[in-house]
């Protein structure tokens, strides 16, 4: 039998394990922490540029890669890695790259790096989440696999081609992009991270990204990886001294990974993280007390709205939709529920884009309970309304508040319905089940009105889940795409937006804002329209 001694042994063993684990864990890298800005993010899903569409991954990639263009304060695209991007007809675009740029493994950046990366991104079987950006380039359709039985068990046939016909190399530093239809705003689109180049080292074979690449991406940017991606912990990057583009001011960045915004906020207040780009709603009321003037707000591109399932009969009369919109008090909602962290929306595109007009929605977005009630009655609106939302997001409070407003203004019953997940919401709308009004949000891909008008409201729009269709509107958006100059485009798009104000396919509710905070040793912190920290401007005071 075990006798008397196992007792003491068990205690001793536990003590040893605890001590050992305690000692092994404390590999401190204090020097890195004092020289680098520590910016909080969530665990990125991917670090391959074309597969990254969420903000945390995008933010990390921004430090490792240098974009062809980026935006100035007026949202105009400005060349960065590109020397020039020109087009005589908005259809064939010539990209000239700047000389002497290298990847962090000293490989020169050439036109091939862009072409190969883009072909990889657009190739259907690679299933890159950012593939839809390449839809405008000629030959995109031939790179998509045609599955004989949809999502069925049979393997899809290989696509017809593996390279976009619209991409052509002229010389080492020049290539052309041919679009399938002219698009005046194409230069702005190129700023997105899916258009970053990939080095030869990223590919293990033509068209195959090597398995370890994502753990330590090699880019053409101002920083390079130090070590590799420590999943769920941090990603550390250090400044490249031989970098030819704009030089950031900090010696390095530690992208510290949090699972939860509350815990990130706790670290921000305690000074363990330098920047938090999104302060959680729960902490907003105490943030200005905790952070003083280090608590800041800046506009971003988020647009929150409620869509009408126009396939449902009771919502087919635009006057019903207008009446419901007029029954909602947007100011009260942003003030009481969002504590001014969002602003009331009275337009169909975000203020972040050129061509935005502050009140394009007109009277239909003005709170007027009396008028709303008479209009609703005369238009024969349904006797009860529902607003569906996904219960895994922070939506219950404002949906209930909105319902209360509608109930008070229109005198009809209104209830909020929580669907477990966003996909449940979409599935119902896509199958044209009677879903009632549904809550949705949108952030832009590039700062053009088209980034809202196209996906959200055109008949074939990728995020038009409520079945709005108006061919005049579609034509105007297309005419805007094809216009000669960006100014002409905006004119057409504004005309299209005017149609929305008449038709009211959605109720615009709120525009997003970045509510961010930073530590005492940090300065010059700005968060842009995409919710990203400007890594070129941020500075830290290094203790001597």
């Amino acid at each position: 039998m075990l006798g008397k001694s196992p007792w003491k042994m068990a205690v001793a063993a536990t003590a040893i394990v605890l001590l050992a684990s305690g000692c092994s864990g404390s590999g401190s890298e204090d020097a890195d922490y004092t020289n680098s800005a520590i910016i909080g993010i969530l665990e990125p899903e991917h670090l391959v540029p074309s597969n990254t569409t969420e903000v945390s991954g995008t933010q990390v990639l921004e430090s490792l890669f240098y974009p062809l263009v980026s935006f100035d304060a007026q949202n105009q695209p400005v060349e960065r890695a590109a020397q020039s991007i020109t087009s005589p007809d908005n259809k064939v675009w010539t990209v000239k790259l700047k000389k002497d740029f290298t990847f962090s493994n000293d490989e020169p950046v050439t036109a091939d790096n862009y072409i190969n990366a883009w072909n990889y991104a657009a190739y259907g079987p690679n299933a890159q989440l950012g593939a839809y950006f390449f839809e405008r380039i000629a030959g995109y359709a031939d790179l998509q696999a045609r599955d004989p039985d949809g999502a069925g068990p049979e393997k899809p046939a290989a696509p017809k081609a593996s390279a976009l016909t619209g991409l052509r190399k002229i010389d080492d530093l020049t290539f052309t992009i041919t679009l399938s239809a002219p698009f005046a705003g194409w230069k702005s689109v190129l700023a997105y991270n899916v258009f970053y180049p990939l080095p030869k080292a990223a590919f293990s074979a033509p068209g195959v990204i090597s398995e370890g690449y994502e753990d330590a991406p090699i880019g053409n940017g101002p920083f390079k990886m130090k070590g590799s991606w420590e999943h769920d912990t941090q990603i550390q990057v250090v400044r490249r001294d031989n970098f030819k583009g704009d030089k950031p001011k900090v010696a390095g960045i530690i992208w510290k990974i949090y699972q939860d915004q509350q815990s990130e906020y706790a670290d921000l207040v305690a000074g363990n993280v330098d920047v938090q780009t999104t302060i959680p709603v729960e902490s907003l009321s105490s943030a200005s007390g905790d952070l003083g003037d280090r608590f800041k707000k800046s506009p971003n591109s988020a647009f929150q709205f409620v869509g009408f399932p126009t396939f449902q009969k009771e919502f087919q009369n635009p006057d019903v939709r207008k009446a419901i919109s007029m029954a909602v008090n947007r100011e009260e909602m942003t003030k009481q529920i969002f504590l001014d962290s969002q602003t009331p929306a009275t337009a169909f595109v975000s203020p972040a884009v050129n061509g935005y007009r502050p009140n394009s929605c007109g009277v239909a977005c003005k709170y007027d309970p009396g008028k709303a009630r008479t209009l609703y009655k005369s238009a024969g609106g349904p006797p009860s309304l529902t607003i569906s939302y996904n219960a895994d997001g922070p939506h219950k409070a404002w949906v209930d508040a909105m319902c209360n407003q509608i109930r008070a203004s229109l005198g009809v019953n209104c209830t909020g319905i929580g669907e477990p997940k966003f996909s449940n919401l979409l599935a119902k709308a896509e199958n044209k089940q009677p879903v009632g009004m549904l809550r949705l949000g949108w952030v832009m891909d590039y700062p053009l009105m088209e980034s809202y008008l196209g996906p959200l409201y055109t008949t074939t729009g990728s995020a038009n889940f409520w079945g709005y269709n108006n061919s005049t509107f579609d034509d105007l958006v297309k005419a805007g795409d094809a216009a000669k100059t960006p100014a002409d485009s905006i004119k057409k798009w504004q005309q299209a937006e005017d149609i929305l104000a008449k038709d009211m396919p959605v109720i615009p509710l709120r525009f997003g804002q970045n509510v961010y905070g930073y530590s005492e040793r940090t300065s010059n912190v700005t968060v842009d329209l995409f919710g990203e920290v400007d890594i070129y401007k941020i500075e830290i005071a290094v203790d001597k």
Partner: protein
Amino acid sequence: MFRYLVRRLLQMILTFVGATFIVYALTFANADDPIQALAGERPVTKAVRETLTERYHLNDPFLVQYWYYLKGLLTGDFGTSLTGRRISAMIEQAWPVTIKLALLSIVIAATVAIVAGVISGVRRGSIFDNSTLALTLLVLALPIVVLAPLAQLIFGIKLGWFPPTAGRNASLYALLLPALVLGSLVFATELRVTRSSVAENLRADYVRTARAKGLSRRRVIGVHVLRNSLIPVITLIGVDIGTLMSGAIVTEGVFNIPGVGFNLLRGIRTEDGPLVVGFVSVLVLVFLVVNLLVDLLYAALDPRIRYE
């Protein structure tokens, strides 16, 4: 003893397969559209959807999917998560910190509970006894979702005694606060059980005999009473491992510890079946092994117990 061990191990295999099956079925029932969950609120193109569906066998019937998974598991392959990370690597990275945290909180909770339980069992009705009663009631009443952020706010931010978050490579000191919070989940019941068990054993015949033999009070309580009183407490600690693991889902989130609890939560949120099942399988294994060890410890505590 040997036959007992073999029997238990065989039972463990059955339990293990059964548990993974049930968990797989549950996550399967929970998953509506993992691909949409991956893309957040952005639209997913048809090509992406089709390719990912084929890659992860998402469209196959449940039993076929489970078969793919089991086949991988039997060859030691836990599969990949929907974001393309190897689940075996994720488990490897997540376990050390969770084990550290769990051990720390077990040790703290058990030490405090047993010491305080013995004292209040010996001095029933004293001020100490009554105040521990009040304290345990308070701790039992506070759910961990309240306790964890509260402790973080008070001790991490306002008083600044502990770092507010820990992280993967946290020092023992940084883990102390989360361990205390986690330990509070189990400390209260352990204390109550120790107390009643000690109180009962104090009246037992063998204690009277020991006293009559003239043994010192310290020896009577420390050796004779304690050893017999620990059997129910040890059982409880074994079962508590499960409580600690589920409590870790909250604690690890609040204190930013990328351990098992956090990964489970992420897997559930992103409808990532293989990820959830991978972590639960290992959890089930730990739970089974710990409880086997607990059963074996009985024999050490009470020589009358024999396993055949």
